[in-house]
C-alpha cells in the first residue's frame, strides 16, 4: 500500500522510527479490527464466559469446602481424566414444590404488572405524543426524571406510604373511611404497586418512540371514512403501535420476573419470587450449585422473551 516516496523516508529515518511507522500503519489499516476486538473481547470474558461457569457449577455437587462445590474435571493418579456431571440440582428444583410455585408466582406477578404498566403507560405515551411542542418536552422530562434518581429510594418511598402506620392508612383513618389500619405493606398488592411504579417509565418511553414516528393522518382518514373512535382505536391505532407495546412490555416483563429488591422490601416473606430465592440460596444458604441451577432455570424461562426483544431491537435499528 505504501507509496515509494514514503518507503524512502522511513528507511532514512532509522529502525526505531520505522517500527513506529509500522505500528501507525498497523493501527490505520487494522483499526476496524481493533474497534471491534476490544468490546468483543470484554463481553466474551465478562458477559458470556460467566454463564458457562454458572452452568458448570449448576452441574456440581454441594460440599462443605472452599469453593463449596465439587470440581467437574478431576485428574486421577495415572492421568485419567474423570468428568463428573450431576443433575441432582435440577432434579431437586423439579421435585421441590416450592421452586415450581415460586417460578409460577414470579411469572404471574410480572405478567400482571406488565399489563398494569401498559394500562397506565399507554394513555400517557399517547397524551405526550399528541401534546404541543413545549408540553411534550416538559412531560417527557417528567417521565424520565425519576429514572435518574435512585431506584432503591423510590421503593423505600412506598414503604412509608403503605406501612400500617404509613401515610395512606393515617390519611384514611383521619378522614374516617377506616377505623383500623389496612395491611398493605408485605402483601402482593404492595409488590404490584412497587413494580408498576418503578417500571412504568420503561413502558412509556418505547411506546412514545414508536408513536412519534406514526402517521397520524391515518386516524383522520379513518374518521373521514366514518369509523367510530372505538373502531379506529382497535383497527388503526392499536395495530400501528403494536411494536411499541411489545418492546415496552418486554422491557417490563423480563427484569420484573427476576426482581429482588421490590419483593424483599415491599413483599417481605409473604411474596415468593425467584430472584429472592436465588439471592437467599446463594448468600444465606451458601448453596452455590442450587443457586446456579435456579439461575439457569430462570434464564431458560426468559430466553424466549429476550430473543424476541433482541429481534425487535435489530429490526428497529435496520429501519432507521
Amino acid at each position, binding site marked *: 500500500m505504501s507509496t515509494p516516496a514514503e518507503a524512502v523516508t522511513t528507511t532514512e529515518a532509522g529502525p526505531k522510527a520505522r517500527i513506529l511507522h509500522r505500528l501507525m500503519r498497523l*493501527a490505520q489499516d487494522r*483499526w*476496524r479490527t481493533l*474497534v*471491534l476486538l476490544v*468490546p*468483543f473481547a*470484554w*463481553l*466474551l470474558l*465478562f*458477559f*458470556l464466559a*460467566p*454463564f458457562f*461457569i*454458572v452452568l458448570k457449577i449448576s452441574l456440581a455437587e454441594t460440599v462443605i469446602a472452599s*469453593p463449596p462445590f465439587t470440581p467437574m474435571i478431576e485428574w486421577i493418579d495415572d492421568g485419567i481424566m474423570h468428568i463428573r456431571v450431576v443433575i441432582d440440582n435440577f432434579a431437586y428444583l423439579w421435585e421441590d414444590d416450592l421452586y415450581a410455585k415460586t417460578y409460577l408466582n414470579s411469572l404471574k406477578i410480572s405478567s400482571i404488572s406488565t399489563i398494569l404498566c401498559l394500562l*397506565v403507560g399507554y*394513555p*400517557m405515551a399517547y*397524551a405526550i405524543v*399528541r401534546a404541543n411542542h413545549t408540553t411534550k418536552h416538559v*412531560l417527557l*422530562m417528567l417521565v*424520565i*426524571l425519576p429514572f*435518574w*434518581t*435512585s431506584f*432503591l*429510594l423510590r421503593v*423505600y*418511598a412506598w*414503604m*412509608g*406510604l403503605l*406501612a400500617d402506620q404509613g*401515610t395512606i392508612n*393515617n390519611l384514611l383513618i383521619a378522614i374516617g373511611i377506616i377505623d383500623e389500619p389496612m395491611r398493605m405493606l408485605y402483601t402482593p398488592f404492595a409488590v404490584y404497586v412497587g413494580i408498576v*411504579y418503578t417500571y412504568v*417509565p420503561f413502558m412509556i418511553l418505547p411506546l412514545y418512540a414508536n408513536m412519534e414516528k406514526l402517521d397520524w393522518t391515518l386516524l383522520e382518514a379513518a374518521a373521514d371514512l366514518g369509523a367510530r373512535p372505538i373502531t379506529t382505536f382497535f383497527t388503526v391505532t392499536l395495530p400501528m403501535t403494536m411494536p411499541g407495546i411489545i418492546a415496552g412490555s*418486554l*422491557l417490563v416483563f423480563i427484569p420484573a*420476573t*427476576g*426482581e*429482588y429488591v421490590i419483593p424483599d422490601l415491599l413483599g417481605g416473606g409473604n411474596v415468593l419470587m425467584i*430472584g429472592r430465592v*436465588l439471592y437467599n440460596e446463594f448468600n444465606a444458604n451458601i448453596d*452455590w450449585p442450587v443457586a*446456579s441451577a435456579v*439461575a439457569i432455570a430462570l*434464564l431458560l424461562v*426468559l430466553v424466549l422473551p429476550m430473543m424476541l*426483544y*433482541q429481534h425487535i*431491537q435489530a429490526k428497529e*435499528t435496520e429501519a*432507521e
Partner: protein
Amino acid sequence: MNNARRSYFLITTTCFGIAFLYVPMILLVLYSFNKSRIVPVWGGFSTKWYGVLFESEEVWEAVGLSLKVATVNATFAMLLGTLAGLALVRFGRFRGRTLFTGMITAPLVMPEVITGLSLLLLFITLKEFIGWPDQRGFTTITIAHITFSMAYVAVIIQSRLAGMAQDLEEAAQDLGAKPFRVLTDITLPLLAPGMLAGWLLAFTLSLDDLIIASFVTGPGAVTLPILIYSRIRLGLRPDINALATIIILVVAIGVLVAAWIMFRQQKQRELELKMSEEA
C-alpha cells in the same frame, strides 16, 4: 365532541400518572424535615436528620466509593460502548455479528441477580486459576458495572449513528481522507453529544446498582446503595429520607441544567439555519 372527550380523558390520565410518579417522592422529601423519629407521623419541622446523616462516617465513605466506581465505570463504558456502537452500525457484516449483537442487547434486560451471580462466580474462578482478583471490592464492582453500562452506551451510540446523515463523512472521503481520518476528524466529533449522554447514563446506572454490586463486592467495600439497603431493610429511617432528598435535589438540578443546555443548542441551531437561509 368526541375529540373533546378524548382529550379530557388523556389530560386526566396524564395528570394522575404524573402525580403517581411524583407524590411518593414529594412525601419522601417532606418527611425528611420531620422532627419525629417515626417517619410518617408528623412531629414538627426540623433539620436534625441532615445533621445525623452528615455526621456518619459510613455514609461519607460509601458516597466516596460509589462516586469513584461511577466515574471510572462511566469513562470505560463510554469508550467501549462507542466502539461497539460504531462496529454495529458502520461495519456491515462481520464474523460473529449475531453473537456480538446478542451480547450487547442481553445485558439491557438480563435480571440483575443472574448477572451478579455469574460475575461473582467468574471472579472466584479467575482467582483460583490466575490469582486475580485477589480481593473483591472497587475493581470487581467497576468491571461488573462497565459490563452492563457499555451495553446502554452502545445502544445510544447506535441510534445516534443511525440517525446521523453520512454526507459529511462522504464529503471528507471524497476529498481524500482515509477511513481512519474520517473516524477521528468527522465521526467522533459528531458523536460527542451522544458519548456525553452515554457517560451520564453509565454514571447514574452505576450509582443506582444494588444487586450486582452486592454480589461482586468483598469485605469492607460498601457502596451507597448497599449501605442504604442495609439500613432500610429494618424499616423506615428519617436519615435515609434526608439522603433521598439530597439525591433528588442533585438529580433535579442536573436534569434541569442539561435540558437548558439542550434547549439553547437547539435555539442556536435554528438561528444558524435561518441565517444561512437568508444569506
